[in-house]
């Protein structure tokens, strides 16, 4: 019999991604060294790394990163917690759902960065306006996905818990929240990048320190090496956050 199965499985190829990266960065470096790429428009990877190292060791890049991390952590945590509580309430109480559905569908589409000037008017140019913008951007997707996850909590589990005489609070803590956990973590992955976008945008509008301000300042003096070093930092921040959430998923969702 002629073999006619197979061919559609995705198999792990461990060396392909690093090899691809090496080829790409190698070509970039070769282009820069040979002078084909204008260093003002795109400095070579070695130069960017050197700049990044120098700025971290001597310059105040560390202060910028520290500021940005604080804003991101605060904004993301506040937004996530608020989204979690509102999403949970909308999933559990009909009146919360009625109000929440209408409010979210009208407010969700607003690009949150458009509200930053208003927040600056209300809260001043300092930290609170930036943190609020990030928190708001994280809040909506979290609320929507937690509400959907609570809706999707298997009814047979709830009925089972009721048959063993568990009270409402125990059912929320022991059945509803654990079954919503995978959706929450999946949403956290998305909101981290939303948070990063808003962080950089807010810092570009008005901040002395912060990775967004750093990139903007580098751009203004056409220092493309520093600019790319800043972009590299953001990319690393996002990758690290993703790795943290992946580790959380591995430990918390072992049962899957």
């Amino acid at each position, binding site marked *: 019999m002629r073999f006619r199965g197979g061919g559609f499985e995705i198999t792990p190829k461990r060396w392909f991604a690093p090899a691809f990266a090496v080829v790409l960065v190698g070509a970039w470096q070769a282009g820069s060294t040979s002078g084909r790429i204008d260093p003002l428009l795109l400095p070579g990877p070695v130069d960017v790394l050197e700049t990044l190292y120098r700025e971290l060791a001597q310059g105040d890049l560390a202060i910028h990163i520290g500021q940005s991390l604080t804003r991101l952590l605060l904004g993301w945590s506040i937004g996530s917690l608020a989204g979690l509580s509102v999403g949970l309430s909308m999933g559990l109480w009909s009146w919360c759902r009625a109000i929440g559905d209408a409010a979210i569908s009208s407010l969700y589409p607003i690009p949150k960065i458009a509200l930053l000037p208003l927040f600056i008017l209300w809260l001043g140019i300092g930290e609170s306006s930036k943190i609020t913008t990030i928190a708001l951007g994280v809040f909506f997707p979290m609320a929507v996905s937690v509400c959907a996850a609570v809706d999707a909590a298997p009814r*047979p589990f709830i*009925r089972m818990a*009721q048959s063993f005489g568990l*009270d409402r609070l*125990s059912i929320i803590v022991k059945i509803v929240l654990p079954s919503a*956990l995978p959706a929450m973590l999946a949403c956290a992955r998305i909101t981290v990048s939303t948070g990063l976008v808003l962080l950089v945008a807010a810092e570009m509008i008005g901040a002395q320190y912060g990775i967004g301000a750093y990139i903007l300042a580098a751009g203004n003096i056409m220092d493309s090496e520093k600019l790319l070093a800043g972009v590299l930092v953001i990319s690393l921040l996002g990758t690290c956050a993703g790795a943290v959430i992946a580790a959380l998923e591995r430990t918390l969702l072992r*049962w899957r």
Partner: protein
Amino acid sequence: MELELRGLGHDFGSLTVLDNVSFAVRKSEIVSVIGPSGCGKSTLLAIAGGLIAPSRGSAVSLGVPPAASLNPFTFVFQDAGLLPWRTVAGNVALALEGRPLSRKAQAEIIEEVLDRTGLCGFAKAYPKQLSGGMKQRVGIARALAARPAFLLMDEPLSAVDAQTRELLMEEFLALWLRDRVSILYVTHNLDEAVRLSDRIVVLSRRPGRVREIVDVAIPQSERRRPDVASELSAMQNDIWNLLRSEARNADRELLSLERADV
């Protein structure tokens, strides 16, 4: 404990699923409910166990549960109803949480029921690691942990293969012969009904009404004997004839409804 169903009726919106159902489960009896699919068997069980309030009639429990009973009316569900994020021990513990028991007492009960259901080495396993039969053993272990005075079982063996079903039936009867709690057992499997029950309530097609109540006079422990086999299979045959006419009429009604729509 005993349970009396008195003139039970239930509607979901304009759809009547149960109508005037009356029968009783006496002390230490196994009563099974059998009927064509969609006749309201599971609804009947949910009403009997107090999970759904009936539209008409009432489910009345008689007798005082023993003091040690944590949850007098305890369910065993179709697909076992195990929480995938809890281990076997954790799932059994759900029946004990929120009760006035020390940690040590809880652990002792868990160990005891896992031992009784043959789940000893599996306390730390997650449900996804278990076969269908093992899952249902956990479901039964969890029910036993609650020290029930009355068991409500909703097609507990419908999700397992034929061999596992046979094995679980034997184990289950052995467990029951020790404690003799009353059981209301919903099934669509005639063999289970005839092997396990003292009485079989045959329901009609929707709306479910009591079509017939069949007594099985042979003690459960003797039903595997070859000389009673023919008696049991004759009984099984009679019930099947009843069910077949119900199922056929239901199909015909559906067909005439569809024709009326055209």
